[in-house]
């Protein structure tokens, strides 16, 4: 599913890289510790977090993530939005808390790292 479709269905507000929403989202990862995201997120994944520091852009760029969703209406810091624009990393803002947002992403069929976990 394209990031642009997800943004539309979940009423996400776009804060950067609006021209880079046509990428395919391969999965999702949620964490607020960037060391954890660097260790575990995968290329093409959408990252759900509450962190707004500019380092989120560097982490997303390094891991080649599809984009970042900030939860609870949190706004990226000014520097974060600028860097994200420069690095073509879409940052989207959801009004929902993490639990609700991730539930809806899951309903849309966005898998996690271990989509097979529930069967095992």
């Amino acid at each position, binding site marked *: 599913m394209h990031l642009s479709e997800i943004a539309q269905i979940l009423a996400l507000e776009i804060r950067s890289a609006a021209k880079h929403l046509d990428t395919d989202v391969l999965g999702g990862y949620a964490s*607020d510790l960037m060391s954890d995201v660097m260790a575990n997120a995968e290329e093409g994944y959408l990252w759900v977090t509450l962190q707004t520091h500019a380092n989120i852009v560097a982490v997303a760029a390094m891991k080649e993530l599809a984009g970042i969703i900030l939860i609870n209406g949190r706004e990226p810091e000014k520097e974060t939005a600028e860097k994200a624009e420069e690095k073509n990393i879409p940052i989207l803002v959801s009004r929902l808390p993490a639990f609700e947002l991730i539930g809806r992403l899951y309903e849309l069929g966005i898998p996690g790292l271990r989509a097979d976990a529930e069967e095992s």
Partner: protein
Amino acid sequence: MDLHVHTCLSPCADLSMVPRTIVGRAKQAGLNAVGICDHNAAANVQAVCEAGREAGIAVIAGMEVTTAEEIHLLALFESEKKLLKFADLVRNHLSGSNDPELFGDQIVVGKNGDPTALEESLLIGATDLGVNRMVKEIHQLEGLAIASHVDRQTFSILSQLGFIPAELDLDGVELSQRAGPEEHYELRGLPVVRCSDAHFPEEIGSAFTTFFIEEASVAEIGMALAAREGRKILKCRARDS
């Protein structure tokens, strides 16, 4: 010097961490100076400074502040006055009230250790100031900003932000008592200090830093961190290493 010691004001510190005990243990441990850094508060610094003057040991006025990213930073100031200004700012950016049953007591004491008040705000919480802004605020008051226990998996700049942002103007980083050699961490070439992060009297001085400076002041420590005018860090280590 051991620049990172808590008092009984910190909810997680032992109630025996009162001014005279702290300076007594610090002297016993052979330290020339001790930095008082409670979580997000400074109400016990003056009492420890007084006890330090009596005992003949320098006390550095500091705080271990929590940023919005839940990063702990040591903020060290030249004077109690500047620290108190900083404490006002921090108070305005903290929210919630403490539950001693859950988090521990937050006791303000006089130099003899007699309780004079209970701090009610939630010192274990985080401020809503991001790390970039916090470092700027510390520098505005001519303080030093040192990232706490960067080797740890919680509340450290490396755990929260993954790496130290290149543009962040830190004066140094702290390795905790149990940290490995500094080459094990990505410290961007920042000056390294080791401190005990003592929450119990017996931990005071369990890690320390030796500076080549003229006196135990924040200005001199700042010059040593920046390796300016002949000042420098001579060594830093844990006591049992």
